[in-house]
């Protein structure tokens, strides 16, 4: 393990808070992945990790390397931008695939039988 003694104490405390906070946020997201009852609720939970969890840990890494090398080290922004841009795309693809599979099997969709759809068939028609 490297020595962080060149790091000022305020920066060390800030890095510690960011690291532990980011890891705890990610853990919260995966606990939600376990605890939510349906897939359409579960798909929301891991985005805690991809937004705030990743942001906190990567900002902590940027702080440590920038202060240790006394120059701005901004590589981690690349990961942050990439994760932030791609996660909504992949999870929307996945949710659409799950919706398609549920409709194709004739399962009741969440929220469909609530209020405005009383009397209509449970399985909505496939759009395409």
């Amino acid at each position: 393990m490297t020595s962080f003694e060149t790091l000022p104490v305020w920066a060390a405390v800030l890095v510690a808070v960011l690291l532990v906070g980011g890891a705890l946020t990610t853990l919260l997201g995966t606990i939600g992945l376990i605890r939510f009852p349906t897939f359409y609720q579960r798909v929301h939970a891991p985005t805690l990790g991809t937004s705030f969890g990743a942001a906190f840990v990567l900002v902590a890494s940027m702080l440590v390397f920038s202060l240790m090398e006394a120059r701005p080290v901004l590589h981690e922004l690349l990961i942050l931008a990439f994760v932030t841009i791609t996660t909504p795309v992949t999870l929307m693809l996945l949710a659409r695939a799950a919706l398609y599979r549920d409709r194709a099997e004739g399962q009741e969709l969440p929220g469909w039988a609530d209020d405005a759809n009383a009397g209509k068939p449970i399985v909505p028609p496939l759009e395409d």
Partner: protein
Amino acid sequence: MSTAIVGTAVVIAQCVLALAICAACWRLLKGPRAQDRVLALDSLYLSAMLLLVTFGIRSGETLYFEAALVIGLLSFVATAALAKFLMRGEVIE
């Protein structure tokens, strides 16, 4: 002083991220359907990527950053391809 603070925080963060990986693995094994497993795989990729970043902070090397970047790229490609497969039954049409 700073070494103690950052070192302890890194170890705690690694333990918490390992717990997150265990939670994602539990959902990956339990299912119940294919889309749940794909979602669990996606969050497994994310937790592993953050774990690699904390390893990079601990060792002070930038090599881990590149590994984390590659895992991030692979996570996007794998999840998009698996979602396409669940939708259409094939990846490249």
